[in-house]
């Protein structure tokens, strides 16, 4: 037990763990994470099984990676705790140095003599140190005086704040991981959805996409209303970077898309032999309309936003974006189907109409319209405030440690025959160069005093 404690209080273990965590994290950026087994099989062949066995396919959530983080946290905790009491005593119950040797071993040191008595030398020195915001502690023995001047003592505890902050961040991460919840919701305008694990509903009142003049998307905006006990409680327009928070839930604008099942299209019907002939029809999927002045009905069967032919030579969609919109239409004369086929909005000359009976008609898909839905991510993350607390402590700690380093000057004054000798040495937790120049200035100004 004792040796285990010793192991976990060593910085060497922390360094070994840091190296292991760093290199395993690196592996996770080289091997794609959380893909399907078939993708791994295609990319890595035989190795795929091995990757799967050691959970390298989901490395950051694997048990062994969590175990590494846990060991690291334990190491940080024990390292910090075992060093804390000594540091605390040093900060709040400092001992005055009474042996010259302990000052002479310091890197930053100086000594000088004055033709004054002990009392005067001490007062001048104290005044100089106080003007530089040093806090003083002193003790006098016969012809000797011992001074301890310190400032920015908080800087000593910087690393403790950093470590505490890290532990809190790790704890917050675990709470997020186990207590967190997220779900993608798709809402069309007017839809109301029950929020899972919550006592309220969410309604999408309005969804709009704003564009820049060049046609790129500027923003997606969803007007959401929270409904509790059938009563609307609050409304907010959410957009990317501006989510809605309510009762621990946060709702993000995460995606958008079209509901292609009820697409309406505009079709122009022409006759090859009669250039003056033009009929425009507007039709929604599933409808059948008569073509004015002709004994024919047009039926709109299916709409595909991004048309391709798959391996089986069937019509399919590559994506849900309207990259290659296509409509499947049929022409009927009473109960007889006379033609059917695909027309494309981007390739008006390339229609695949199969005619059962001779027809002179040609079709062009001119426009299409479908209702857009808003993709909203609902998230509940009980760890997030803990994370912010940890980050705050982490930054306070870093600022203390690096920008507010503690400084300490130890001085022994000794009077012999009316003259006083001063031996001073200093320690700074960081940034020794700046401290050295301050130390030199203090000693120089004492030297110059008459």
């Amino acid at each position, binding site marked *: 037990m004792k040796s285990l404690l010793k192991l976990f209080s060593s910085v060497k273990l922390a*360094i070994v763990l840091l190296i292991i965590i760093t290199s395993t994290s690196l592996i996770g950026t080289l091997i794609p994470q959380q893909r399907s087994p078939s993708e791994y099989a295609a990319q890595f062949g035989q190795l795929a099984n091995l990757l799967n066995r050691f959970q390298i396919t989901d490395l950051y959530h694997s048990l062994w990676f969590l175990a590494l983080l846990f060991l690291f946290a334990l190491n940080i905790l024990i390292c910090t705790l075992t060093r804390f009491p000594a540091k605390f005593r040093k900060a709040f119950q400092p001992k005055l140095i009474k042996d010259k040797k302990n000052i002479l071993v310091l890197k930053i040191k100086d000594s000088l003599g004055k033709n004054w008595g002990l009392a005067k030398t001490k007062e001048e020195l104290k005044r100089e140190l106080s003007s530089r915001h040093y806090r003083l502690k002193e003790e006098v023995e016969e012809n000797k005086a011992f001074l301890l001047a310190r400032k920015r003592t908080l800087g000593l505890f910087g690393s403790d704040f950093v470590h505490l902050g890290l532990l809190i961040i790790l704890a917050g991460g675990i709470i997020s991981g186990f207590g967190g919840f997220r779900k993608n919701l798709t809402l069309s305008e007017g839809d109301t959805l029950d929020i899972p694990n919550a006592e309220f509903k969410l309604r999408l009142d309005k969804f709009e996409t704003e564009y820049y003049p060049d046609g790129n998307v500027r923003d997606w905006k969803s007007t959401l209303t929270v409904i509790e006990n059938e009563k609307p409680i609050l409304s907010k327009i959410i957009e990317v*970077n501006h989510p809605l928070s309510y009762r621990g839930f946060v709702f993000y604008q995460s995606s958008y898309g079209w509901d292609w099942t009820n697409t309406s299209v505009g079709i122009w019907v022409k006759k090859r032999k009669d250039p003056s002939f033009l009929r425009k029809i507007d039709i929604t999927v599933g409808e059948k309309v008569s073509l004015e002045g002709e004994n024919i009905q047009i039926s709109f069967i299916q709409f595909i936003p991004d048309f391709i032919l798959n391996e089986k030579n069937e019509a399919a969609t590559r994506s849900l974006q309207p990259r290659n919109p296509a409509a499947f239409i049929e022409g009927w004369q009473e109960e007889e189907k006379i033609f059917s086929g695909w027309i494309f909005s981007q390739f008006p000359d390339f229609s695949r109409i199969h005619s059962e009976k001779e027809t002179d008609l040609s079709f062009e898909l001119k426009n299409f319209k479908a209702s857009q839905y808003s993709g909203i991510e609902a998230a509940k993350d009980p760890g997030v405030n803990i994370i912010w607390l940890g980050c705050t402590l982490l930054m306070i700690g870093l600022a203390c440690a*690096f920008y507010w380093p503690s400084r300490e000057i130890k001085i022994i004054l000794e009077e012999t025959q009316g003259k006083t000798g001063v031996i001073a040495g200093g320690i700074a937790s960081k940034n020794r160069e700046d401290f050295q120049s301050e130390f030199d200035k203090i000693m120089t100004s004492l030297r110059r005093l008459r």
Partner: protein
Amino acid sequence: MNESILFFTTFILYIISAFFYFSFLFSKKENLARIGFKFAFSGLLIHTVALIWRTVESGHAPFTNMYESLSFFAWSSILAYVIIEFKYKIRKAGPYFMLIVIALMALASSPLMPKEATPLVPALQSYWLWLHVSVTLLGEAFFAVAFITSIMYLVADSREKKGGAAKSKLSADKLDSISYRCIAIGFPLFTLGGLVFGMIWAYKAWGRYWSWDPKETWSLITLFVFALYLHTRVVMGWKGRRSAYVAIIGFLAALFTYFGVNYILSGLHSYA
């Protein structure tokens, strides 16, 4: 007059600065280094105007594509160098440092980088863009200075070991402690900008503060390498060569986080 003319003027000033710095390196005339510094500093001023110009013209932060962010990184690198030069007088690092800056400017002006300011995609429309990118890149700029002084340390150290005394005021020891100072300044900035601000923004935009996205993971790796540098140094008393190697690896990791991830690995940070 427009932003590209200002950018080009800046580039020329940096090249002239490098020219004087290198003449100083070969002739050992301190005066030439002073002129080099003046050119670098006036480059920094014009560069600042160029960045402000770009911001006003495009209406958004001047680091939303690779051209802009490279130019901004060059700017923060010069800023970091000016600060460190002002405090610690590292003239001899000037020529090598200017080479890095010129490389960044050359990359930015290469035809591979689209220059035109495009309107922001929805995810980038946030004031966190300012905070996240600028603070991170400023932190990385200090790592860049540490990178140069660490390499110079390795060279100076092997020369001093062969018996040659420290040739100038910039001894191996001093280079070692300047590297440490730069990392001590850069580390809190990088943590704040890269990790903390990044997490806050990710939470606001994507709904999760951490997703193990390659860019996130690589910034964590960079942070860990520098944490390693600090702990081996402060607690275990590492100095000199070993520390210099860790600092060099750290900057390379930062560089990979910045460039490599975009071009080699794919993820959420696909815009810049």
